[in-house]
């Protein structure tokens, strides 16, 4: 299964096919604060992409596949309408890194 739902996050892996779009959209609609992790994703069906475009879940990690990442960046421009949302993401992103660093020194 290319989509793994773990708590409030969906991890998309490998090539996500058209069938996944239905499950993903239902899951994203079920609760507002759900997030997606695309780091292991290598390909998306256009229907899955549409879910991401229309429902705008927060993206925890962009695909490591550079080409796909560029397509996603084009399709999902950073939402200018929600500035607080954006800063939040930024803080979140930097947090684990800081934690990791402090963990390393300990």
């Amino acid at each position: 299964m290319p989509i793994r739902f773990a708590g409030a996050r969906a991890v998309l892996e490998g090539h996500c096919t058209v069938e996944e779009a239905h499950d993903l959209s239902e899951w994203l609609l079920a609760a507002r604060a759900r997030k997606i992790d695309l780091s292991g994703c290598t390909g998306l069906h256009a229907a899955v992409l549409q879910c991401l475009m229309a429902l705008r879940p927060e993206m925890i990690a962009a695909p490591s596949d550079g080409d796909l990442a560029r397509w996603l960046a084009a399709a999902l421009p950073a939402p200018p309408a929600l500035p607080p949302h954006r800063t939040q993401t930024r803080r979140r992103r930097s947090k684990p890194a800081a934690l990791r660093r402090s963990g390393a020194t300990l």
Partner: protein
Amino acid sequence: MPLKPPPSPAPPVGAEQAELAASFVEEARVLLEQAGEALLTLERDPADQEAINALFRAVHSIKGAAGLFDLPAMVHLVHAGEDLLSAMREGRVRMDSAAADELLEGLDHVGQWIGLFQQDGVLPPAAMEIARRYAAAYRARLGGTGDPQPAGEVATGGTRHAWADDHGAAIQDSGGHDGPFVTVEYCPDPACFFSGEDPLHVARTIPGLVWFDIAPREAWPDPRLFDPYVCNLRIRLASCALLEEVEQHFRYMPDAVTIGLLHGSAPSPVVGAPAALPPLAVELIEAQRSALAEPARAGQIADIAATLRNICAALGQPVPFAGTPDEAALAAATAELLTRDALPDAAANADVAGEAVPPTGAVRPDTTERTLRVEQGRIDTLMNLVGELVVAKNALPFLARDAENRFGSRELAREIKERYAVIDRIARQMQGAVMDIRMMPVSDLFKRFPRMVRDIARKQDKQVQLVIEGETTEADKNVIEALAEPLTHILRNSLDHGIETGAERRALGKPDVATVRLVASQEGDSVVIDISDDGRGVDPDRVRAKAIERALIDAERAAQLTDEQAVQLVFLPGFSTAEAISDLSGRGVGMDAVRSVIERLGGEVTLQSRPGEGTTVRLRLPLSMAVTRVLTVDLAGQAYGIPMDLVVETVRTDPAAIRRLKAAEAIVRRDTVIPLIRLRTLLGMEEHRPSLESVLILRIGHATVGLVVDDFGTGMDIILKPFAGILANMSGFSGTAVLGDGRVLLVLNLKEML
């Protein structure tokens, strides 16, 4: 001109600059060649859109590249030429012979300057004078029409996407050149998911993708109403592939796409945009941008920054960066400067929902041909090494024999032979691969001739068309290169002596336009080039008279020669039939020079003439100076090589089976009588009658012959070295080769001996 070219980025310092200059020189030469070719096509058919586009592109690229260096004269000349071409492209000025002459001369100057630039790094001061003269001449052609109307109405042959113009700069930016680009607007059917279409996949796999943008077609509905299976996407793409390729890509969804063309020059003259940059500035900025994209640019950041600053200063525009910028800042700055041109009004951009992202990296390789330019010296080294490997490898069978005979280890001998088979196979493949690299199509050689023929014909007031066939025939680079001079000579001779003047031709009832044909083809292991004309042919009596007059042959022998033999006399050294020595040919170093070059390459040249109908010169050359496979035979303890391609089979036969017909001997094989020839007799050795005769069945031409030898050896690959020096004229042998054990193998030229 509104803008002076900025000072050069830097005096040529450092290896990087030198490298950049070297690649510029090489590229410019290729472009000049393309331009020359296109110009000739265009002269014949002024309506040839493809040719004018090719010409324009080539000239344009030269200009862009020249802007990187301190070459104001070149930029000036090429810029004026480009203006003229652009007018021709729009049909405002007509191409004629005189214009073609001027443009060709201009290109010649550019070619010369590139040579000088390569040599000295600078152009002579006189260059600017020449550039001004030509620029004035080109402008004068333009002057009559003097219509400053911007070229807004170029027919595209397809839909014109407004967004493509808006994003023109970005598209050109990612495309790395300025077009033309194919633009696609792809709005998949809302129900397309049910027919198995994946628009994202379709879009991502478009050939030659340079730019894309993806956005919802209509605003997304309330999340509760969102249906993931209704496609609501609008994808915009730009590709540098051919229109047909893109059309082919979208062949299953013709209703969902509109395909248009974006011409490179179109977006720059944005109608009525006061803030637009002058075209030359755009060029220069673009040149900086492509320099930035060069991988070998580390040392040039400062130079590029300086150039951009100069451009901005000249334009009175603010400099889009501060201090010492890094690569990314410069890239952003060039993009920004170009946007100032293409998008004077931010409002024009309003309908763009998503931010366009130029794909790089993974997608780019599709758009460019993956080739590697290598110095010829390196390939030659590789070839020599392969040659040595072949010789070294041939030592292994000797080693195996030694292991068996001298050291009595049969097993070791067998093992060595097994290893030998492996090395032999690899070495043979390696050889093939290296030879393949060295193969070049003859078109590389032929492409210089249309221009030459045209120039000579114009000078002599003759009308000549050159027909070239078989350009794709390939041969070794050495062969191709060595052929340039002989072919030039033969063609000149043909035009000078063979082709009659227009008046003569009319009197003879021949078509006004003479035809010279240059035909290449491959025949077995050789490449054959025929140069034929429909001129007056070679007069055998005049050739005889001339040869006697020059004391090349005595009258008695000349009289005995058939006409066909007589015309071959033109190949004798010191023969020249031109009544008056023209500046083209007839300097007395004619056909004998041709013959010596061809023979040095291991080829042959023949001349056929039909008086009044024309002459054909046929060059036959080996495809490559490759390794030859030979079968060694033993004769009185000495090894001789026989080219493997002649050998049909080897037979050991009882002497009683040999039939004698008077002095001749023959054997019967498969109901065929095969005449026998004893190699010992041929080479003047004493006879040898073993209990079992070894007969090599050979096919020479159309005849089958049995050659009696003492014993058969092995097949081996050798590098055949023709005889040199005092042995050069020895008949019966085609050359020698060094064997793995150091012995010299004589290779027999059986075609000549039998």
